[in-house]
């Protein structure tokens, strides 16, 4: 019997010194073959396995993870969840994700600590405020909540924010999505892993894919550090490692660049902000974790990188932006910083599709917005794998859209991944 959590089991185990907890998922050896192999044991891969088993009854599934479960971006992000996009394809997809988030702890019997504390985008010029009004209207048109806020309302919500007229970039208003918020990122990976495992999915850690088994063009399995494994369908959900894995399949170029994104956390403070705040004049976003640390980040470093660490210029820039908004944080100490590798696509939107080779399914291009997409990404990818065709939610997110002129460029930045 695997670990089941309830108020009673927590109390009973506490009284017994927490010595009798069972592992939340098995540690199986790989079988010789599966119906579906999912490469990548991060949030998206685990969610895909969960929904394959739960929604489509496909349980003869292996998730292959080269490190330990959740060691990649699902454990490295800044935990924000939102669906405040401009373009309909993105809005519909991320709103589907938001609705899955709203029921996720109950669905998984695992507390992912989803907290709808809101996400506030600050506007610093009248033109930017107009742009937010346009985006807010586009969101409401598709049934997503959005509201414009005045500086006085913002000051009541976030008292620590410098909204004075002599601030470096005075705040003229903001766009608020109340249903947005944060979630405990590790718990999302663990919850999906346990849910998938319980339905029969084999989660195989420390199993690195080293190549693909092929029959002509068709992918028939993978070679791994733990032997060859055959499968009818091989699904790839490896985020920043997409380029490397696709090259193993002989696909040299992709509409993807891998970039490093840094994130930071301060020492624990008393309650300071109870929402997610984003800066409109640079790139900065911050929330406060339940432990009290301020969790924040900014831009990617801006050059191709597979190193899970960045350089100092971005550290300097992020700190400067934080102090421009919150001068009162000047003496707070930064506790930790880290980096994750992001699969930056050419239009800032993801790819969830069957192909490009027969027997292969591809999920990538999350830029640095992959965490909030986790439930819908897994849900749509599972649908695509099970039915060999996309759901309406992910039909626009094809791989060939770039060559067909069907890009989904929410920010209008063009094919320059470091700007998305």
């Amino acid at each position, binding site marked *: 019997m695997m670990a089941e959590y309830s108020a009673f089991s927590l109390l009973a185990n506490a009284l017994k010194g927490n010595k009798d907890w069972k592992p939340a998922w098995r540690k199986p050896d790989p079988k010789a073959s599966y119906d579906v192999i999912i490469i990548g044991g991060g949030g998206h891969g685990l969610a895909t396995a969960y929904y394959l088993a739960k929604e489509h009854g496909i349980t003869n599934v292996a998730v292959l993870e080269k490190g330990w479960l959740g060691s990649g971006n699902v454990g490295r992000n800044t935990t924000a969840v939102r669906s405040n996009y401009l373009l309909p394809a993105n809005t519909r997809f991320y709103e589907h994700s938001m609705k899955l988030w709203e029921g996720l702890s109950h669905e998984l019997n695992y507390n992912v600590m989803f907290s709808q504390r809101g996400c506030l985008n600050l506007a610093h010029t009248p033109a930017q405020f107009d742009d937010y009004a346009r985006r807010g209207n586009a969101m409401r048109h598709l049934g997503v909540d959005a509201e414009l806020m005045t500086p006085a309302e913002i000051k009541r919500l976030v008292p620590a924010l410098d909204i004075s007229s002599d601030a470096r970039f005075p705040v003229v208003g903001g766009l608020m999505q109340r249903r947005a918020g944060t979630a405990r990122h590790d718990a999302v990976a663990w919850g999906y892993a346990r849910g998938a495992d319980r339905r029969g999915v084999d989660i195989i850690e420390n199993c690195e894919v080293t190549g693909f088994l092929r029959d002509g063009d068709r992918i028939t399995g993978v070679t791994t550090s733990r032997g060859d494994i055959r499968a009818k369908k091989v699904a790839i959900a490896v985020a920043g*490692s997409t*380029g*490397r894995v696709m*090259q193993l399949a002989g696909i*040299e*170029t*992709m*509409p*993807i*660049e*891998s970039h490093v994104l840094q994130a930071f956390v301060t020492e624990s403070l008393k309650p300071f902000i109870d929402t997610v705040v984003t800066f409109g004049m640079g790139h900065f976003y911050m929330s406060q974790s339940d432990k009290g640390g301020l969790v924040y980040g900014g831009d990617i470093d*801006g*050059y*191709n*990188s*597979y*190193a899970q660490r960045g*350089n100092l*210029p971005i550290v300097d820039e992020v700190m400067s932006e934080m102090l421009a908004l919150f001068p009162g944080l000047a003496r707070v100490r930064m506790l930790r910083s880290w980096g994750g590798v992001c699969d930056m696509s*050419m239009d800032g939107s993801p790819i969830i599709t069957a192909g490009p080779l027969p027997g292969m399914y591809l999920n990538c291009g999350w830029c640095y917005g992959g965490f909030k997409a986790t439930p819908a990404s897994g849900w749509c990818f599972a649908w695509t794998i099970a039915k060999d065709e996309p759901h309406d939610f992910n039909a626009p997110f094809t791989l060939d859209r*770039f*060559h067909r002129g069907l890009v989904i460029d929410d920010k209008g930045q063009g*094919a*320059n*991944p*470091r700007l998305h």
Partner: protein
Amino acid sequence: MLITCPYCGPRDVIEFTYQGDGNRERPDPASQNFEAWNAYVYDRLNPAGDHNEIWQHSGGCRTHLRVVRNTLTHEISSVAFVRGDHASGARRKAEDRS
């Protein structure tokens, strides 16, 4: 990360602007080969290891540089003027991408 500009010497990365993948071959401006243009605009090699890329020393001498940098370690193994490519007619070919 320091980039050693052949003109200015070693300088902090903050002085440079990243211009991206240096492996791409821009089609002739008069070309109507849409596939070649699409590939030029959207497709990237994105290697884990040595990457041939273009940087501009925008905070210095403003020249464009062809840099070979390891994307796993950020170690830079060579820096040269991009304009040298044209002088010698040596645009990057597929076989020397590795």
